[in-house]
């Protein structure tokens, strides 16, 4: 069991007042706050260890490189990847998905091929495939959802019959918190010869992820959503697959020999996909963030958030006309809702002066909003640092806001 007071003491931002009230930060799904350990690791690196990595003869560069590569190993361990070179640093999940769509996609996707997405994907897992599909004259197909915001099983099976080359789906929906049974869908998709990319942005912050057990082809996540810094993310890919893919970005670090006359040959994994000076401090601090999570306990974090979510749903259900969007059986703590006759934006605007930070709008999920025929939702999303008192404040705040708005 997690000790919220102890955890909160590690998040300096939670001492802030917003508009005269204590800050109640319920926007974890958009971006997590950072524990002191992560902030200090980044600072410490810049204060005492910074140098450009790889190829340096001087000790500082060696030490920076060691710390940077150690962080890669931390990610490997955290995801239980088989090989450390399967961990590619990217600028974030969006960057990682674009890497796959442009390197793997542009060599593997042909005219007429099907790429299978789901109705609940984040724009980051839609637009890169649309750009690819347009270029290659491929086709996007979409697995629909049921009224609870779960993937429609029958539809999934049906769409697999279209023989997609790729299935790209989120591990956890960011707008609704639905936890998809990615292991089962990976198996089913691979059984018909499809590659599987899992968008783990909303999973890694909340649960244990084991890519070897999932056996997926690609797995991506962003550092800033998982207690880490901004500007860093991870692409996991199976070694043979990554090896078979052409480079995407060209530049330093990713080359073997560069010749203007004889052409250029590329470095091995993971460097082939890491052109240019990497986000060294970000990688190191992300390693610290993952270790911090493991220290608290992934299971405890997940359990705690589930408790908060359940309580929030319990309390909010009493608000007249309130409807939850996303009532899947298996879900994370995320609570998304709309209130009859009230615009989500108005609720968010009124919660703000009470110090309560929620996200409102489409959550980069317009196709899902379109499906529900709503302009957006109010979304409260929880991290390890949130408390039941904050959930109470949320529900009181929403009640008050709705009263004012009606």
């Amino acid at each position: 069991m997690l000790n919220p007071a102890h955890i909160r003491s590690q998040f300096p931002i939670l001492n802030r007042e917003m508009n005269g009230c204590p800050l109640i930060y319920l926007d974890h799904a958009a971006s997590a706050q950072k524990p002191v350990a992560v902030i200090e690791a980044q600072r410490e690196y810049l204060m005492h260890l910074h140098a450009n990595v790889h190829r340096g003869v001087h000790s500082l560069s060696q030490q920076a490189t060691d710390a940077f590569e150690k962080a890669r190993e931390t990610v490997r361990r955290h995801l239980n990847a088989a090989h450390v070179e399967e961990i590619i640093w990217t600028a974030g999940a969006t960057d990682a998905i674009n890497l796959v769509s442009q390197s793997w996609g542009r060599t593997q996707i042909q005219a007429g091929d099907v790429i299978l997405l789901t109705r609940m994907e984040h724009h980051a897992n839609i637009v890169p495939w649309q750009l690819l599909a347009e270029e290659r004259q491929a086709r996007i197909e979409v697995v629909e959802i049921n009224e609870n915001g779960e993937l429609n099983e029958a539809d999934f099976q049906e769409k697999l019959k279209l023989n997609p080359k790729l299935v790209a789906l989120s591990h956890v929906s960011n707008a609704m918190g639905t936890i998809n049974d990615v292991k089962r869908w990976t198996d089913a998709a691979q059984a018909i010869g499809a590659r599987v990319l899992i968008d783990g942005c909303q999973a890694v912050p909340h649960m244990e992820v084991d890519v070897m057990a999932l056996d997926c082809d690609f797995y991506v996540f962003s550092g800033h959503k998982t207690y880490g810094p901004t500007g860093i993310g991870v692409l996991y890919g199976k070694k043979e697959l990554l090896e078979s893919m052409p480079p995407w970005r060209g530049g330093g670090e990713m080359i073997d020999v560069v010749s203007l006359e004889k052409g250029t040959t590329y470095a091995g994994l993971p460097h082939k996909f890491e052109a240019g000076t990497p986000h060294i401090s970000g990688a190191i601090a992300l390693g610290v963030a993952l270790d911090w999570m493991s220290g608290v306990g992934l299971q405890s974090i997940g359990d705690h958030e589930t408790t908060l979510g359940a309580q929030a749903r319990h309390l909010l259900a009493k608000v007249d006309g309130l409807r939850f969007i996303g009532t899947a059986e298996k879900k994370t703590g995320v609570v998304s809702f709309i209130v009859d006759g009230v615009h989500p934006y108005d609720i968010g605007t009124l919660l703000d002066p009470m110090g309560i930070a929620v996200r409102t709008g489409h959550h980069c999920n317009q196709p899902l909003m379109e499906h529900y025929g709503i302009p957006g939702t109010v979304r409260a999303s929880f991290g390890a640092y949130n408390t039941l008192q904050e959930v109470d404040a949320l529900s009181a705040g929403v009640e008050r806001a709705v009263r004012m708005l009606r």
Partner: protein
Amino acid sequence: MSDSNQLLQQRQEEIVEEFAFFEDWMEKYEYLIELGKELSPLEEADRTDENIIRGCQSRVWLAAKKSPEGLLEFRADSDAIITRGLVALVIRALDQLSPEVVSGADLWFVQRIGLDTHLSPTRANGLLAMVQQMKHYGIAFQAR
């Protein structure tokens, strides 16, 4: 100073005075909600794609025409009520003024009543775009 400009300044002062009564944010928002509710909705005919100003979250519709006296008449609406309240305030300030004054209007009242963050370019409510659109109308109607 033109009549229109005088009016614009006067109206802004009135609004600032009104808001001086409010002790906190919630009271301000209550008042905005009230204003939003009072604003007569735009007829369906005016809720066209042409008149829409898309903020990322709330949408605003804006229609403009020139009165026989050569003044600009604005009608506007939004799907979010607080945005509607803000829309009502802006209309109250700018309605029935000369195109010249509208096109160059400095809406200083917004900052004075502490609502300038709602008009910042990073807000997702379409309000700043609405004000810009009103000024564009000001320019366009001068030209005619």
